[in-house]
């Protein structure tokens, strides 16, 4: 099927609301992190949201690492 429209893709095919709740911003040890929930309290770091460059040097919070929220 070819759909010819000037409508943006996200308006024609809206994303499932559950997709949005998968990712959230949490503050972990004082560092704001964008995490993807893996189920329960476990999550994977997607992005470090901090503006402090030293937070990016900490290998405990590099994107891809799994953390458990207390």
């Amino acid at each position, binding site marked *: 099927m070819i759909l010819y*429209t*000037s*409508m*943006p893709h*996200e*308006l024609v095919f809206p*994303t499932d609301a559950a*997709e*949005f709740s*998968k*990712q959230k*911003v949490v503050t972990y*040890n*004082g*560092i*704001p992190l964008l995490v*993807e929930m893996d189920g329960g309290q476990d999550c994977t770091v997607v992005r470090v*949201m901090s*503006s*402090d*460059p*030293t*937070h990016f040097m*900490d290998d405990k919070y590099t994107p891809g690492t799994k953390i458990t929220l207390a």
Partner: protein
Amino acid sequence: MGNDKKQNDSLNEQPDQPKEEQPPSLIDKIQQLGQTNVPQLSQDSKIHCLTIVGQIEGHLQLPPQNKTTKYEHLIPQIVAIEQNPKIEGLLVILNTVGGDVEAGLAISEMLASLSKPTVSIVLGGGHSIGVPIAVSCSYSFIAETATMTIHPIRLTGLVIGVPQTFEYLDKMQDRVINFVTKHSNISEECFKDLMFAKGNLTRDIGTNVVGTDAVKYGLIDNVGGIGPALKKLEELIENNKQGNEGIVQ
């Protein structure tokens, strides 16, 4: 009376009992001795860094697979940077395709009104609404290979129905033009010429300005990367400090 006395006795006894038990129970509770892993506060950087990447997200939330910069994340950070006396300067790194005009202008205005020195670097691309964000800082850099697309404001998916909608769009465009001309060395005519140029973007109107050209038009202050940007920021911080000391005296 007798009952009261009994109660009093029991009340007196109760606090006594835990007192005797407290010392061992407290020690039992301690599982580990030592320092907690607090993030190293002493190593706090005096220069903070904001990365504006992907799309600038406005009122419409984009699906998580998109890389976005949300203004509700950035604006509190800018407020925190302004308030924290330990932070002396801000480095803004841009690699954005643009996005929501009002969100972009909000970020630009916040950066422009920051009392601390700010330096921006455009790496890769600083397109459309990324242009006002790049020029909002005290000093701007662009990588030699980086580009900036200047084009008129567009609405996707919506058809302009009434002349008022067009007028509203036109006013919104004036806000962008005014901001850019006020915060950079580009003249309004030059910026409008680039914005409405034909033939540069195949069948679209606008111009794709590459590194050195952006400096030539006066849009960006200098060509350079992280090294020159940090050097400039240190210099601005030093000037800012001297200026503040002068006021105190």
